[in-house]
Protein backbone atom coordinates (compact mmCIF):
# COMPACT_ATOMS: atom_id res chain seq x y z
CA UNK A 1 0.00 0.00 0.00
CA UNK A 2 2.84 2.38 0.91
CA UNK A 3 4.54 1.78 -2.45
CA UNK A 4 1.26 2.42 -4.27
CA UNK A 5 0.71 5.62 -2.27
CA UNK A 6 4.23 6.76 -3.14
CA UNK A 7 3.62 6.04 -6.81
CA UNK A 8 0.31 7.92 -6.74
CA UNK A 9 1.96 10.81 -4.93
CA UNK A 10 4.69 11.01 -7.60
CA UNK A 11 2.13 10.85 -10.43
CA UNK A 12 0.05 13.60 -8.78
CA UNK A 13 3.09 15.81 -8.31
CA UNK A 14 4.11 15.22 -11.94
CA UNK A 15 0.62 16.22 -13.12
CA UNK A 16 0.80 19.31 -10.92
CA UNK A 17 4.09 20.32 -12.55
CA UNK A 18 2.52 20.02 -16.01
CA UNK A 19 -0.45 22.04 -14.74
CA UNK A 20 1.88 24.73 -13.36
CA UNK A 21 3.67 25.00 -16.70
CA UNK A 22 0.30 25.26 -18.49
CA UNK A 23 -0.95 27.97 -16.11
CA UNK A 24 2.23 29.98 -16.58
CA UNK A 25 1.89 29.50 -20.34
CA UNK A 26 -1.74 30.69 -20.20
CA UNK A 27 -0.65 33.88 -18.50
CA UNK A 28 2.14 34.63 -20.98
CA UNK A 29 0.03 33.66 -24.00
CA UNK A 30 -2.80 35.98 -22.96
CA UNK A 31 -0.46 38.91 -22.30
CA UNK A 32 1.27 38.32 -25.65
CA UNK A 33 -2.10 38.12 -27.41
CA UNK A 34 -3.31 41.41 -25.88
CA UNK A 35 -0.09 43.20 -26.87
CA UNK A 36 -0.02 41.76 -30.38
CA UNK A 37 -3.74 42.50 -30.85
CA UNK A 38 -2.95 46.20 -30.49
CA UNK A 39 -0.19 45.83 -33.05
CA UNK A 40 -2.69 44.26 -35.43
CA UNK A 41 -1.30 40.73 -35.19
CA UNK A 42 -3.31 38.77 -32.59
CA UNK A 43 -2.36 35.20 -31.72
CA UNK A 44 -4.78 33.06 -33.72
CA UNK A 45 -6.85 30.69 -31.61
CA UNK A 46 -5.53 32.02 -28.30
CA UNK A 47 -8.98 31.85 -26.68
CA UNK A 48 -9.44 28.18 -27.45
CA UNK A 49 -5.86 27.29 -26.45
CA UNK A 50 -6.39 29.06 -23.11
CA UNK A 51 -9.77 27.39 -22.55
CA UNK A 52 -8.26 23.95 -23.20
CA UNK A 53 -5.19 24.64 -21.08
CA UNK A 54 -7.45 25.92 -18.28
CA UNK A 55 -9.46 22.68 -18.33
CA UNK A 56 -6.29 20.60 -18.14
CA UNK A 57 -4.84 22.76 -15.33
CA UNK A 58 -7.87 21.94 -13.21
CA UNK A 59 -7.82 18.28 -14.28
CA UNK A 60 -4.13 17.98 -13.38
CA UNK A 61 -4.52 19.48 -9.91
CA UNK A 62 -7.47 17.28 -8.82
CA UNK A 63 -5.35 14.31 -7.59
CA UNK A 64 -2.93 16.53 -5.67
CA UNK A 65 -5.83 18.42 -4.07
CA UNK A 66 -7.34 15.14 -2.87
CA UNK A 67 -3.99 13.91 -1.53
CA UNK A 68 -3.53 17.20 0.31
CA UNK A 69 -7.16 17.09 1.50
CA UNK A 70 -7.66 20.54 0.00
CA UNK A 71 -11.30 20.12 -1.02
CA UNK A 72 -13.77 21.83 1.30
CA UNK A 73 -15.70 19.55 3.65
CA UNK A 74 -17.56 19.90 6.95
CA UNK A 75 -15.88 17.47 9.32
CA UNK A 76 -16.61 19.23 12.62
CA UNK A 77 -19.51 16.89 13.43
CA UNK A 78 -17.69 13.72 12.33
CA UNK A 79 -14.65 14.71 14.41
CA UNK A 80 -16.77 14.58 17.59
CA UNK A 81 -17.67 10.90 17.02
CA UNK A 82 -15.72 7.87 18.42
CA UNK A 83 -12.78 6.66 16.25
CA UNK A 84 -14.69 3.66 14.87
CA UNK A 85 -17.70 5.77 13.79
CA UNK A 86 -15.33 8.35 12.34
CA UNK A 87 -13.60 5.62 10.38
CA UNK A 88 -16.95 4.37 9.03
CA UNK A 89 -17.85 7.90 7.91
CA UNK A 90 -14.45 8.21 6.24
CA UNK A 91 -14.92 4.89 4.42
CA UNK A 92 -18.36 5.97 3.21
CA UNK A 93 -16.96 9.31 2.09
CA UNK A 94 -14.15 7.65 0.13
CA UNK A 95 -16.48 5.10 -1.50
CA UNK A 96 -18.77 7.91 -2.70
CA UNK A 97 -15.78 9.80 -4.05
CA UNK A 98 -14.45 6.74 -5.92
CA UNK A 99 -17.91 6.02 -7.37
CA UNK A 100 -18.36 9.63 -8.51
CA UNK A 101 -15.00 9.85 -10.24
CA UNK A 102 -15.25 6.41 -11.86
CA UNK A 103 -18.64 7.51 -13.21
CA UNK A 104 -17.18 10.83 -14.38
CA UNK A 105 -14.18 9.15 -16.01
CA UNK A 106 -16.45 6.66 -17.78
CA UNK A 107 -18.79 9.44 -18.94
CA UNK A 108 -15.87 11.57 -20.12
CA UNK A 109 -14.29 8.68 -22.09
CA UNK A 110 -17.70 8.11 -23.70
CA UNK A 111 -18.08 11.81 -24.52
CA UNK A 112 -14.55 11.94 -25.97
CA UNK A 113 -15.35 8.93 -28.16
CA UNK A 114 -18.53 10.66 -29.38
CA UNK A 115 -16.60 13.87 -30.14
CA UNK A 116 -14.04 11.78 -32.01
CA UNK A 117 -16.76 10.01 -33.98
CA UNK A 118 -18.48 13.20 -35.15
CA UNK A 119 -15.08 14.86 -35.71
CA UNK A 120 -15.84 17.96 -33.64
CA UNK A 121 -12.98 20.46 -33.69
CA UNK A 122 -12.25 23.90 -32.23
CA UNK A 123 -13.32 26.92 -34.30
CA UNK A 124 -9.99 28.49 -35.25
CA UNK A 125 -7.17 26.00 -34.87
CA UNK A 126 -9.34 22.96 -35.63
CA UNK A 127 -7.95 21.04 -32.67
CA UNK A 128 -10.04 17.86 -32.15
CA UNK A 129 -12.09 18.36 -28.98
CA UNK A 130 -11.84 14.63 -28.33
CA UNK A 131 -8.20 15.18 -27.28
CA UNK A 132 -9.40 17.42 -24.46
CA UNK A 133 -12.12 14.90 -23.58
CA UNK A 134 -9.62 12.05 -23.34
CA UNK A 135 -7.20 14.24 -21.37
CA UNK A 136 -9.87 15.12 -18.84
CA UNK A 137 -11.03 11.49 -18.67
CA UNK A 138 -7.49 10.38 -17.78
CA UNK A 139 -7.27 13.06 -15.07
CA UNK A 140 -10.63 11.99 -13.63
CA UNK A 141 -9.54 8.35 -13.70
CA UNK A 142 -6.29 9.19 -11.88
CA UNK A 143 -8.38 11.07 -9.30
CA UNK A 144 -10.54 7.93 -8.85
CA UNK A 145 -7.38 5.86 -8.28
CA UNK A 146 -6.08 8.41 -5.76
CA UNK A 147 -9.37 8.18 -3.88
CA UNK A 148 -9.16 4.35 -4.00
CA UNK A 149 -5.69 4.53 -2.44
CA UNK A 150 -6.98 6.87 0.24
CA UNK A 151 -9.82 4.40 0.84
CA UNK A 152 -7.26 1.61 1.18
CA UNK A 153 -5.28 3.70 3.65
CA UNK A 154 -8.45 4.35 5.68
CA UNK A 155 -9.30 0.63 5.72
CA UNK A 156 -5.85 -0.25 7.00
CA UNK A 157 -5.44 -0.24 10.78
CA UNK A 158 -5.51 3.29 12.22
CA UNK A 159 -6.05 4.75 8.77
CA UNK A 160 -8.71 7.19 9.85
CA UNK A 161 -6.36 8.72 12.35
CA UNK A 162 -3.74 9.34 9.70
CA UNK A 163 -6.04 11.44 7.54
Amino acid sequence: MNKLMMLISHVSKFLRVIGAVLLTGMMFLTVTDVILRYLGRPVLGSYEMIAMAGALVIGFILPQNSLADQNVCVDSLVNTTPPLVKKLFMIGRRILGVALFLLLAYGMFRKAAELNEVGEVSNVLHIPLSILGYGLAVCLFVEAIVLMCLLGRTLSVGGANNE
Partner: protein
Amino acid sequence: MSDPTIIVITVVVLLLALFLSGVELAFAMAIMGVVGWTLLNSFEVAIDVLTNDFFESLASYSLTVVPLFVLMGQVAFNAGIAKSLFDCAHKFLGHIAGGLAIATVAGATIFKAICGSAVATSATFASVAVPEMDRFKYSRKLSTGIVAIAGTLGNFIPPSVILIIFGISTQLSIGKLFMAGLIPGLILAFCFGIVAHGWCRINPTIGPKVPKFSWKERMATVPVNLLPVLIFIVIIGGLTAGVFSPTEAGSIGAFGVLALCVIKGNLNFNGFVKSIQEAMGTAGMFLLLVASSAVLGHFFAASTISAILSEWVASLPVHRSVIMGLIMFIYLLGGSFVDDLAFMLLATPIFFPIVLKLGYDPYWAGIMIAGFTIAIGSVVPPVAICVFVVKNVTKEPMGVIYRGCFPFMIPLFFCILLLFIFPELATWLPTVLAK
Protein backbone atom coordinates in the same frame (compact mmCIF):
# COMPACT_ATOMS: atom_id res chain seq x y z
CA MET B 1 -41.44 9.14 -6.93
CA SER B 2 -42.46 11.53 -9.68
CA ASP B 3 -43.53 14.77 -8.01
CA PRO B 4 -40.61 17.17 -8.67
CA THR B 5 -41.17 19.00 -5.37
CA ILE B 6 -40.82 15.79 -3.34
CA ILE B 7 -37.74 14.82 -5.36
CA VAL B 8 -36.14 18.22 -4.70
CA ILE B 9 -36.89 18.02 -0.97
CA THR B 10 -35.44 14.48 -0.83
CA VAL B 11 -32.31 15.59 -2.68
CA VAL B 12 -31.80 18.65 -0.46
CA VAL B 13 -32.23 16.61 2.75
CA LEU B 14 -29.80 13.92 1.53
CA LEU B 15 -27.37 16.62 0.41
CA LEU B 16 -27.34 18.21 3.86
CA ALA B 17 -26.83 14.75 5.38
CA LEU B 18 -23.82 14.20 3.09
CA PHE B 19 -22.44 17.64 3.96
CA LEU B 20 -22.65 16.90 7.68
CA SER B 21 -21.13 13.44 7.28
CA GLY B 22 -17.88 14.95 6.05
CA VAL B 23 -18.17 14.23 2.32
CA GLU B 24 -16.33 16.83 0.21
CA LEU B 25 -18.93 19.51 -0.60
CA ALA B 26 -18.18 19.42 -4.32
CA PHE B 27 -18.48 15.62 -4.42
CA ALA B 28 -21.74 15.75 -2.45
CA MET B 29 -23.28 18.30 -4.84
CA ALA B 30 -22.32 16.27 -7.93
CA ILE B 31 -23.54 13.01 -6.37
CA MET B 32 -26.89 14.49 -5.37
CA GLY B 33 -27.18 16.11 -8.79
CA VAL B 34 -26.84 12.61 -10.29
CA VAL B 35 -29.37 11.18 -7.80
CA GLY B 36 -31.80 14.01 -8.56
CA TRP B 37 -31.51 13.57 -12.33
CA THR B 38 -31.94 9.80 -11.93
CA LEU B 39 -35.15 10.27 -9.91
CA LEU B 40 -36.41 12.97 -12.25
CA ASN B 41 -35.47 11.22 -15.48
CA SER B 42 -33.09 8.26 -15.75
CA PHE B 43 -29.57 7.18 -14.78
CA GLU B 44 -28.47 7.43 -18.42
CA VAL B 45 -29.56 11.09 -18.56
CA ALA B 46 -27.89 11.70 -15.19
CA ILE B 47 -24.50 10.49 -16.50
CA ASP B 48 -24.87 12.65 -19.63
CA VAL B 49 -25.70 15.75 -17.58
CA LEU B 50 -22.86 15.07 -15.14
CA THR B 51 -20.31 14.60 -17.93
CA ASN B 52 -21.52 17.53 -20.04
CA ASP B 53 -21.62 19.92 -17.08
CA PHE B 54 -18.08 18.99 -16.05
CA PHE B 55 -16.79 19.22 -19.63
CA GLU B 56 -18.52 22.54 -20.34
CA SER B 57 -17.53 24.05 -16.98
CA LEU B 58 -13.88 23.03 -17.07
CA ALA B 59 -13.35 23.75 -20.78
CA SER B 60 -15.09 27.12 -20.61
CA TYR B 61 -12.94 30.13 -21.54
CA SER B 62 -14.86 32.30 -19.07
CA LEU B 63 -13.81 30.05 -16.16
CA THR B 64 -10.11 30.50 -16.89
CA VAL B 65 -10.48 33.87 -15.19
CA VAL B 66 -10.47 32.10 -11.80
CA PRO B 67 -6.96 30.55 -11.79
CA LEU B 68 -5.46 33.71 -13.28
CA PHE B 69 -6.92 36.13 -10.73
CA VAL B 70 -6.10 33.67 -7.94
CA LEU B 71 -2.52 33.53 -9.27
CA MET B 72 -2.33 37.32 -9.20
CA GLY B 73 -3.41 37.28 -5.56
CA GLN B 74 -0.99 34.50 -4.61
CA VAL B 75 1.97 36.30 -6.18
CA ALA B 76 1.02 39.48 -4.28
CA PHE B 77 0.57 37.40 -1.11
CA ASN B 78 3.96 35.67 -1.34
CA ALA B 79 5.88 38.76 -2.48
CA GLY B 80 5.41 40.93 0.60
CA ILE B 81 3.74 43.83 -1.22
CA ALA B 82 1.50 44.31 1.80
CA LYS B 83 4.44 45.36 3.98
CA SER B 84 5.27 48.44 1.95
CA LEU B 85 1.57 49.33 1.64
CA PHE B 86 1.15 49.10 5.41
CA ASP B 87 4.35 51.06 5.96
CA CYS B 88 3.04 53.87 3.73
CA ALA B 89 -0.38 53.95 5.44
CA HIS B 90 1.34 53.81 8.85
CA LYS B 91 3.41 56.91 8.08
CA PHE B 92 0.38 58.86 6.90
CA LEU B 93 -2.21 57.76 9.48
CA GLY B 94 -0.34 56.19 12.40
CA HIS B 95 -0.27 59.32 14.60
CA ILE B 96 -4.07 59.69 14.94
CA ALA B 97 -6.13 57.74 17.49
CA GLY B 98 -6.33 54.12 16.29
CA GLY B 99 -4.01 55.14 13.47
CA LEU B 100 -2.34 51.77 12.99
CA ALA B 101 -5.72 50.04 12.85
CA ILE B 102 -6.85 52.62 10.27
CA ALA B 103 -3.57 52.10 8.41
CA THR B 104 -4.32 48.36 8.36
CA VAL B 105 -7.69 49.04 6.73
CA ALA B 106 -6.14 51.48 4.23
CA GLY B 107 -3.30 49.11 3.38
CA ALA B 108 -5.70 46.15 3.07
CA THR B 109 -7.97 48.18 0.78
CA ILE B 110 -5.14 48.84 -1.67
CA PHE B 111 -3.72 45.33 -1.25
CA LYS B 112 -7.19 43.97 -2.01
CA ALA B 113 -7.02 45.75 -5.34
CA ILE B 114 -4.36 43.29 -6.46
CA CYS B 115 -5.36 40.26 -4.36
CA GLY B 116 -8.82 38.82 -4.84
CA SER B 117 -8.96 36.75 -1.69
CA ALA B 118 -10.40 37.74 1.70
CA VAL B 119 -8.46 34.97 3.43
CA ALA B 120 -5.14 35.96 1.84
CA THR B 121 -5.75 39.60 2.83
CA SER B 122 -6.39 38.65 6.47
CA ALA B 123 -3.42 36.26 6.56
CA THR B 124 -1.08 38.83 5.01
CA PHE B 125 -2.02 41.67 7.35
CA ALA B 126 -2.04 39.37 10.37
CA SER B 127 1.67 38.79 9.75
CA VAL B 128 2.48 42.37 8.69
CA ALA B 129 0.29 44.68 10.80
CA VAL B 130 -0.22 42.79 14.08
CA PRO B 131 3.53 42.72 15.05
CA GLU B 132 3.74 46.45 14.31
CA MET B 133 0.65 47.13 16.44
CA ASP B 134 2.19 44.94 19.18
CA ARG B 135 5.29 47.14 19.07
CA PHE B 136 3.17 50.21 19.83
CA LYS B 137 1.20 48.43 22.60
CA TYR B 138 -2.07 48.10 20.73
CA SER B 139 -4.55 45.76 22.39
CA ARG B 140 -4.57 42.32 20.77
CA LYS B 141 -8.37 42.49 20.69
CA LEU B 142 -8.22 45.51 18.37
CA SER B 143 -5.21 44.42 16.30
CA THR B 144 -6.42 40.89 15.57
CA GLY B 145 -10.04 42.02 15.13
CA ILE B 146 -9.13 44.68 12.59
CA VAL B 147 -7.01 42.33 10.44
CA ALA B 148 -9.77 39.71 10.43
CA ILE B 149 -12.43 42.26 9.52
CA ALA B 150 -10.21 43.95 6.92
CA GLY B 151 -10.21 40.64 5.05
CA THR B 152 -13.94 41.01 4.41
CA LEU B 153 -13.15 43.94 2.10
CA GLY B 154 -11.93 41.17 -0.20
CA ASN B 155 -15.54 40.35 -1.02
CA PHE B 156 -16.28 43.84 -2.39
CA ILE B 157 -13.24 45.52 -3.83
CA PRO B 158 -12.31 44.20 -7.26
CA PRO B 159 -10.93 41.76 -8.28
CA SER B 160 -12.95 39.76 -5.75
CA VAL B 161 -12.79 36.02 -6.44
CA ILE B 162 -16.16 35.55 -4.71
CA LEU B 163 -17.76 38.05 -7.12
CA ILE B 164 -16.09 36.31 -10.07
CA ILE B 165 -17.60 32.98 -9.01
CA PHE B 166 -20.99 34.57 -8.34
CA GLY B 167 -20.82 36.16 -11.81
CA ILE B 168 -20.00 32.81 -13.40
CA SER B 169 -22.79 30.97 -11.58
CA THR B 170 -25.42 33.61 -12.43
CA GLN B 171 -24.00 34.54 -15.86
CA LEU B 172 -23.68 38.19 -14.85
CA SER B 173 -20.97 40.46 -16.24
CA ILE B 174 -17.90 40.14 -14.01
CA GLY B 175 -16.79 43.68 -14.91
CA LYS B 176 -20.14 45.13 -13.82
CA LEU B 177 -20.08 43.08 -10.60
CA PHE B 178 -16.63 44.49 -9.85
CA MET B 179 -17.94 47.99 -10.35
CA ALA B 180 -21.01 47.27 -8.21
CA GLY B 181 -18.77 46.20 -5.32
CA LEU B 182 -16.36 49.14 -5.47
CA ILE B 183 -18.42 51.90 -3.79
CA PRO B 184 -19.86 49.65 -1.03
CA GLY B 185 -16.33 48.32 -0.42
CA LEU B 186 -14.86 51.81 -0.08
CA ILE B 187 -17.72 52.95 2.19
CA LEU B 188 -17.18 49.87 4.32
CA ALA B 189 -13.43 50.54 4.55
CA PHE B 190 -14.13 54.13 5.56
CA CYS B 191 -16.62 52.98 8.22
CA PHE B 192 -14.12 50.42 9.60
CA GLY B 193 -11.64 53.29 9.96
CA ILE B 194 -14.23 55.46 11.72
CA VAL B 195 -15.09 52.68 14.18
CA ALA B 196 -11.40 51.99 14.91
CA HIS B 197 -10.82 55.71 15.48
CA GLY B 198 -13.93 56.09 17.65
CA TRP B 199 -13.07 52.99 19.70
CA CYS B 200 -9.59 54.33 20.43
CA ARG B 201 -10.95 57.79 21.29
CA ILE B 202 -13.32 56.22 23.82
CA ASN B 203 -10.63 53.88 25.19
CA PRO B 204 -7.17 55.28 24.33
CA THR B 205 -5.36 52.40 26.06
CA ILE B 206 -6.29 49.91 23.33
CA GLY B 207 -4.66 51.94 20.55
CA PRO B 208 -2.03 54.41 21.81
CA LYS B 209 -0.85 57.18 19.47
CA VAL B 210 2.43 56.59 17.64
CA PRO B 211 5.04 59.21 16.67
CA LYS B 212 4.20 61.49 13.77
CA PHE B 213 6.32 61.29 10.62
CA SER B 214 7.49 64.29 8.59
CA TRP B 215 5.93 64.93 5.19
CA LYS B 216 9.28 64.10 3.59
CA GLU B 217 9.27 60.66 5.24
CA ARG B 218 5.65 60.12 4.28
CA MET B 219 6.06 61.11 0.62
CA ALA B 220 9.14 58.88 0.29
CA THR B 221 6.88 55.81 0.70
CA VAL B 222 4.40 56.87 -1.98
CA PRO B 223 6.13 56.15 -5.34
CA VAL B 224 6.71 52.43 -4.72
CA ASN B 225 3.08 51.97 -3.68
CA LEU B 226 1.69 53.71 -6.74
CA LEU B 227 2.59 50.71 -8.89
CA PRO B 228 -0.01 48.30 -7.37
CA VAL B 229 -2.60 51.09 -7.74
CA LEU B 230 -1.53 51.53 -11.36
CA ILE B 231 -1.93 47.78 -12.02
CA PHE B 232 -5.40 47.93 -10.46
CA ILE B 233 -6.40 50.90 -12.64
CA VAL B 234 -5.12 49.18 -15.79
CA ILE B 235 -6.88 45.86 -15.21
CA ILE B 236 -10.17 47.17 -13.84
CA GLY B 237 -10.22 50.13 -16.23
CA GLY B 238 -9.49 47.84 -19.18
CA LEU B 239 -12.08 45.34 -18.05
CA THR B 240 -14.90 47.85 -17.56
CA ALA B 241 -14.03 49.74 -20.75
CA GLY B 242 -14.32 46.47 -22.65
CA VAL B 243 -10.64 46.53 -23.69
CA PHE B 244 -9.93 43.18 -21.98
CA SER B 245 -11.97 40.10 -21.25
CA PRO B 246 -11.93 39.09 -17.54
CA THR B 247 -9.40 36.33 -18.33
CA GLU B 248 -7.12 38.85 -20.06
CA ALA B 249 -7.48 41.23 -17.12
CA GLY B 250 -6.48 38.40 -14.77
CA SER B 251 -3.48 37.49 -16.92
CA ILE B 252 -2.30 41.08 -17.25
CA GLY B 253 -2.79 41.59 -13.51
CA ALA B 254 -0.85 38.43 -12.65
CA PHE B 255 1.90 39.37 -15.10
CA GLY B 256 2.00 42.96 -13.81
CA VAL B 257 2.26 41.94 -10.15
CA LEU B 258 4.87 39.31 -11.06
CA ALA B 259 6.93 41.87 -13.01
CA LEU B 260 6.62 44.36 -10.13
CA CYS B 261 7.84 41.76 -7.63
CA VAL B 262 10.73 40.62 -9.84
CA ILE B 263 11.85 44.23 -10.41
CA LYS B 264 11.69 44.97 -6.68
CA GLY B 265 13.45 41.68 -5.90
CA ASN B 266 10.60 40.55 -3.65
CA LEU B 267 9.99 37.22 -5.33
CA ASN B 268 12.47 34.53 -6.33
CA PHE B 269 11.81 31.46 -8.48
CA ASN B 270 10.79 29.34 -5.50
CA GLY B 271 8.30 32.00 -4.45
CA PHE B 272 6.83 32.00 -7.94
CA VAL B 273 6.56 28.18 -7.97
CA LYS B 274 4.86 28.30 -4.57
CA SER B 275 2.43 30.95 -5.86
CA ILE B 276 1.59 28.87 -8.94
CA GLN B 277 1.02 25.72 -6.88
CA GLU B 278 -1.18 27.51 -4.35
CA ALA B 279 -3.12 29.22 -7.13
CA MET B 280 -3.74 25.88 -8.86
CA GLY B 281 -4.86 24.25 -5.61
CA THR B 282 -7.28 27.05 -4.76
CA ALA B 283 -8.60 27.38 -8.31
CA GLY B 284 -9.03 23.60 -8.55
CA MET B 285 -11.05 23.59 -5.34
CA PHE B 286 -13.20 26.53 -6.52
CA LEU B 287 -13.82 25.18 -10.02
CA LEU B 288 -14.66 21.69 -8.80
CA LEU B 289 -17.35 23.35 -6.69
CA VAL B 290 -18.53 25.37 -9.71
CA ALA B 291 -18.73 22.29 -11.97
CA SER B 292 -20.54 20.24 -9.31
CA SER B 293 -22.96 23.04 -8.53
CA ALA B 294 -23.75 23.25 -12.27
CA VAL B 295 -24.99 19.62 -12.17
CA LEU B 296 -27.14 20.36 -9.14
CA GLY B 297 -28.25 23.76 -10.47
CA HIS B 298 -29.42 22.23 -13.74
CA PHE B 299 -31.34 19.63 -11.75
CA PHE B 300 -33.07 22.40 -9.74
CA ALA B 301 -33.88 24.23 -12.99
CA ALA B 302 -35.28 21.07 -14.61
CA SER B 303 -37.41 20.36 -11.55
CA THR B 304 -38.96 23.86 -11.99
CA ILE B 305 -38.67 24.33 -8.21
CA SER B 306 -37.09 27.78 -8.67
CA ALA B 307 -40.00 28.96 -10.81
CA ILE B 308 -42.58 27.53 -8.37
CA LEU B 309 -40.80 29.14 -5.40
CA SER B 310 -40.42 32.47 -7.23
CA GLU B 311 -44.13 32.62 -8.01
CA TRP B 312 -45.06 31.70 -4.46
CA VAL B 313 -42.66 34.11 -2.77
CA ALA B 314 -43.62 36.99 -5.10
CA SER B 315 -47.26 36.51 -4.13
CA LEU B 316 -46.57 36.76 -0.37
CA PRO B 317 -48.22 39.80 1.27
CA VAL B 318 -44.96 41.18 2.73
CA HIS B 319 -42.60 43.90 1.57
CA ARG B 320 -39.90 42.65 -0.79
CA SER B 321 -37.12 43.94 1.46
CA VAL B 322 -38.35 41.57 4.20
CA ILE B 323 -38.07 38.65 1.79
CA MET B 324 -34.64 39.83 0.65
CA GLY B 325 -33.55 40.11 4.29
CA LEU B 326 -34.83 36.60 4.91
CA ILE B 327 -32.96 35.26 1.89
CA MET B 328 -29.74 36.87 3.15
CA PHE B 329 -30.36 35.31 6.56
CA ILE B 330 -30.76 31.88 4.93
CA TYR B 331 -27.43 32.37 3.13
CA LEU B 332 -25.81 33.40 6.41
CA LEU B 333 -27.29 30.46 8.31
CA GLY B 334 -26.49 27.95 5.55
CA GLY B 335 -22.98 29.32 5.17
CA SER B 336 -22.44 28.99 8.94
CA PHE B 337 -23.10 25.26 8.87
CA VAL B 338 -21.66 24.30 5.49
CA ASP B 339 -19.22 26.70 3.84
CA ASP B 340 -20.07 30.18 2.63
CA LEU B 341 -18.91 29.71 -0.95
CA ALA B 342 -20.36 26.21 -1.31
CA PHE B 343 -23.69 27.31 0.13
CA MET B 344 -23.74 30.30 -2.21
CA LEU B 345 -23.23 28.00 -5.20
CA LEU B 346 -25.86 25.60 -3.87
CA ALA B 347 -28.52 28.17 -2.99
CA THR B 348 -28.09 30.71 -5.80
CA PRO B 349 -29.91 28.67 -8.50
CA ILE B 350 -32.89 28.51 -6.11
CA PHE B 351 -32.91 32.01 -4.63
CA PHE B 352 -31.49 34.20 -7.38
CA PRO B 353 -34.58 33.83 -9.63
CA ILE B 354 -36.70 34.84 -6.60
CA VAL B 355 -34.60 37.97 -6.08
CA LEU B 356 -35.02 38.88 -9.74
CA LYS B 357 -38.75 38.16 -9.56
CA LEU B 358 -38.95 40.61 -6.65
CA GLY B 359 -37.64 43.25 -9.05
CA TYR B 360 -34.17 43.76 -7.57
CA ASP B 361 -31.19 44.70 -9.72
CA PRO B 362 -29.04 41.57 -10.26
CA TYR B 363 -25.78 43.41 -9.54
CA TRP B 364 -27.15 44.90 -6.34
CA ALA B 365 -28.31 41.41 -5.36
CA GLY B 366 -24.83 40.06 -6.13
CA ILE B 367 -23.26 42.51 -3.68
CA MET B 368 -25.85 41.76 -1.01
CA ILE B 369 -25.53 37.97 -1.36
CA ALA B 370 -21.94 37.34 -2.44
CA GLY B 371 -20.58 40.45 -0.76
CA PHE B 372 -22.29 41.06 2.56
CA THR B 373 -23.54 37.62 3.62
CA ILE B 374 -20.19 35.98 2.88
CA ALA B 375 -18.34 38.87 4.53
CA ILE B 376 -20.38 38.44 7.72
CA GLY B 377 -20.09 34.64 7.48
CA SER B 378 -16.30 34.91 7.37
CA VAL B 379 -16.09 36.67 10.76
CA VAL B 380 -18.93 35.13 12.80
CA PRO B 381 -18.95 31.65 14.41
CA PRO B 382 -19.00 28.75 13.77
CA VAL B 383 -17.17 28.81 10.39
CA ALA B 384 -15.32 32.16 10.48
CA ILE B 385 -12.56 31.61 7.97
CA CYS B 386 -10.93 35.05 8.36
CA VAL B 387 -10.84 34.61 12.15
CA PHE B 388 -9.34 31.10 11.80
CA VAL B 389 -6.59 32.45 9.58
CA VAL B 390 -5.75 35.29 11.97
CA LYS B 391 -5.75 32.84 14.89
CA ASN B 392 -3.29 30.59 13.04
CA VAL B 393 -0.92 33.47 12.35
CA THR B 394 -1.15 35.32 15.68
CA LYS B 395 -1.85 32.34 18.02
CA GLU B 396 -4.45 34.52 19.77
CA PRO B 397 -7.53 32.69 21.17
CA MET B 398 -10.58 32.80 18.88
CA GLY B 399 -12.66 34.52 21.58
CA VAL B 400 -10.33 37.53 21.65
CA ILE B 401 -10.47 37.89 17.86
CA TYR B 402 -14.26 37.52 17.80
CA ARG B 403 -14.55 40.24 20.46
CA GLY B 404 -12.23 42.40 18.36
CA CYS B 405 -14.41 41.89 15.29
CA PHE B 406 -17.64 42.63 17.11
CA PRO B 407 -17.60 46.48 16.99
CA PHE B 408 -16.88 46.28 13.25
CA MET B 409 -20.12 44.38 12.65
CA ILE B 410 -21.87 47.75 13.08
CA PRO B 411 -20.45 49.12 9.79
CA LEU B 412 -21.32 45.86 8.03
CA PHE B 413 -24.98 46.06 9.07
CA PHE B 414 -25.01 49.82 8.52
CA CYS B 415 -23.82 49.33 4.93
CA ILE B 416 -26.47 46.65 4.32
CA LEU B 417 -29.11 49.13 5.50
CA LEU B 418 -27.54 51.85 3.37
CA LEU B 419 -27.72 49.66 0.29
CA PHE B 420 -31.36 48.82 0.97
CA ILE B 421 -32.17 52.54 1.19
CA PHE B 422 -29.82 53.65 -1.61
CA PRO B 423 -29.38 50.72 -4.02
CA GLU B 424 -27.74 53.18 -6.43
CA LEU B 425 -24.57 52.83 -4.36
CA ALA B 426 -24.15 49.46 -6.07
CA THR B 427 -26.03 50.03 -9.33
CA TRP B 428 -24.84 53.50 -10.33
CA LEU B 429 -21.24 52.72 -11.29
CA PRO B 430 -22.05 49.66 -13.47
CA THR B 431 -24.77 51.66 -15.27
CA VAL B 432 -22.57 54.70 -15.88
CA LEU B 433 -19.61 52.65 -17.09
CA ALA B 434 -21.82 50.49 -19.30
CA LYS B 435 -22.79 53.65 -21.22
